[in-house]
């Protein structure tokens, strides 16, 4: 009697463990196969000239994605310049004053913005900036990316800052430190690890966006570092090369995808690193 009950429990346990293992495997298969595919196909495209040269004319073998690498760096740099102050600022505001009417309004708007499909952000920038200025530009592209980053930053910042014990803030106030100084130097600084995570994740998200760049940054087969000129980017290059009929371009698309994957991986790893021991005092 007891023995059969034990056996049944053991069998159930084994079966459930096995099923959980299966679920893990099913989850991992697409991820691992995707990584494997990108690495396997992309690695062969990587070379010094792939990283540093400009694309060849259509149908010719060779050339590289140097313009896309520089373009993506330019776009992300500008997007961070525009997006970080706004997004982190909004997050700090929400954490400090988020319960009033203004705070609720801002949070509501940020949530709506977070739900906006990225292609719509691109369209909006096209209508607001590209058409009136009569030019496609890196600035327009990075503005579209910044629009996508702001809600992520605001939410991430607010959540981390809210986790900082109120006591710290009050202790600072009690010592006679001004409110804004306490907020910035005590609370925000304590939450720096979490904010950094939000920054890295937002950058990683922006780095992989294609749709908002198509009709804002357009593309450029030459080097460009000017914010007021059209510029290439890795995601748009991948998009164009992947649908092309040329085997060499398809190979380069895989290579560029690998670069993008490495970039996003590094940003995510940096985000992890930054959150380790979140409240151990990120500033010391």
């Amino acid at each position: 009697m007891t023995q059969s009950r034990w056996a049944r429990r053991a069998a159930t346990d084994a079966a459930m463990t096995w099923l959980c293992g299966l679920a893990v495997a099913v989850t991992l298969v697409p991820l691992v196969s995707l990584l494997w595919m990108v690495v396997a196909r992309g690695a062969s495209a990587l070379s010094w000239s792939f990283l540093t040269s400009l694309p060849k004319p259509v149908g010719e073998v060779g050339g590289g994605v140097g313009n896309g690498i520089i373009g993506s760096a330019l776009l992300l740099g500008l997007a961070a310049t525009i997006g970080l102050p706004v997004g982190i600022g909004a997050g700090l505001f929400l954490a400090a004053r988020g319960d009033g009417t203004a705070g609720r309004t801002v949070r509501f708007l940020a949530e709506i913005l977070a739900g906006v499909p990225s292609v719509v952000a691109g369209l909006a920038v096209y209508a607001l900036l590209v058409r009136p200025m009569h030019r496609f530009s890196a600035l327009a592209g990075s503005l579209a990316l910044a629009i996508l980053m702001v809600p992520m930053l605001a939410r991430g910042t607010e959540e981390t800052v809210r986790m900082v014990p109120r006591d710290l803030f009050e202790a600072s106030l009690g010592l006679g430190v001004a409110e804004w100084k306490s907020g910035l130097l005590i609370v925000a600084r304590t939450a720096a690890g979490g904010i950094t995570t939000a920054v890295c994740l937002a950058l990683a998200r922006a780095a992989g966006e294609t749709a908002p760049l198509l009709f804002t940054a357009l593309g450029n087969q030459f080097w460009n570092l000017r914010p007021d000129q059209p510029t290439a980017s890795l995601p748009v290059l991948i998009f164009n090369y992947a649908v092309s009929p040329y085997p060499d371009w398809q190979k380069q698309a895989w290579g560029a995808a690998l670069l993008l994957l490495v970039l996003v991986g590094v940003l995510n790893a940096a985000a992890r690193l930054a959150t380790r021991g979140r409240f151990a005092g990120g500033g010391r």
Partner: protein
Amino acid sequence: MRRLLVCLAIAACTRTPLPSRAVPAAPSATPTLVNGAGSTFVFPLLSKVFSDYVRVDPRVRFNYQSIGSGAGIRQITDRTVDFGASDAPLTDEQLAKAPDILHLPIVLGAVAVAYNLPSKPALRLTPDLLAGLYLGEITRWNDPRIAAVNPGVSLPSLPVAVIHRADGSGTTAIFTDYLAKVSPTWAQKVRHGTAVRWPVGIGGKGNEGVAGQLMSLPGAVGYVELAYAVQNKLPVASLANRAGEWIAPSVASTTAAATGAAASMPDDLRVSVTDPPGVGAYPIAGFTDILVFRGQTDPVKGPALARFLWWEIHDGQREAEPLLYAPLPPAVVAKVAVKIRSITLAGKPILVGQPE
């Protein structure tokens, strides 16, 4: 805070291997960027031409993005680019919105009917068969109507997968212009233009996309600019022309299609050369036009553009044939030259005293 900096520093390091060594020795001033967008039909040629033109005029770089003729027309009309490229002339309606736009033909191209059949047979197609395929009336490759004009060819029992363009396309405009001329059913049901309501088929983005789908889908039939078919080793159909010959797309047969077009070219140079009467003429061909505003405003870009166009219709023509585009007939060159001379900067003609 330090972590934030570390994170940004890591991010910065991974993203910016600055290409200081790879940048070609730049002339003292940064070259001016002239931006254009449009036709994918002419992209293989233009990307070669612009890559070579750097040596002719190192002061300028022509950045060309192949987003489709439809989008090219839209962007030049909105003045978001400095020039557009289209294989379909602007419609009267489009021209009314931007009456100052010039059509400057730079080259002729053939729209090849390419297919993906396992044995790569050389096929012949009549206008009716082509319309039948794209109307969805012929659904298998071994249809007796196809077999009737292809004696001795073993046709596979594959379903026909029709591929067309998904974006606004000048290639589509040339192709449907032809079908509307040769098939009353087509003219009535589908009509012609840069984007039409396709009865059957799946869409591809750009000539690149259609060629890509053709290569990956057995049984597929699609229309692409000849260079895309040849570069990708896709077999192309010989078509029956008005003179009753079977003609494969080639530089010679495309040139033949344009002969006679020069004489009947209207003053604004908007012309269709599909289904021409001439002997040896391939029936689905067309001019690609560069679209620019007659009145240029940028003191650097305007002259650069005019100089490039002048070079393109003269010296630049020799780039066409190796890529299977047909150079302009001399009579057309003369007409385009007059148009290029009419481009002005602040009201004054740009190319004064330019050698003929």
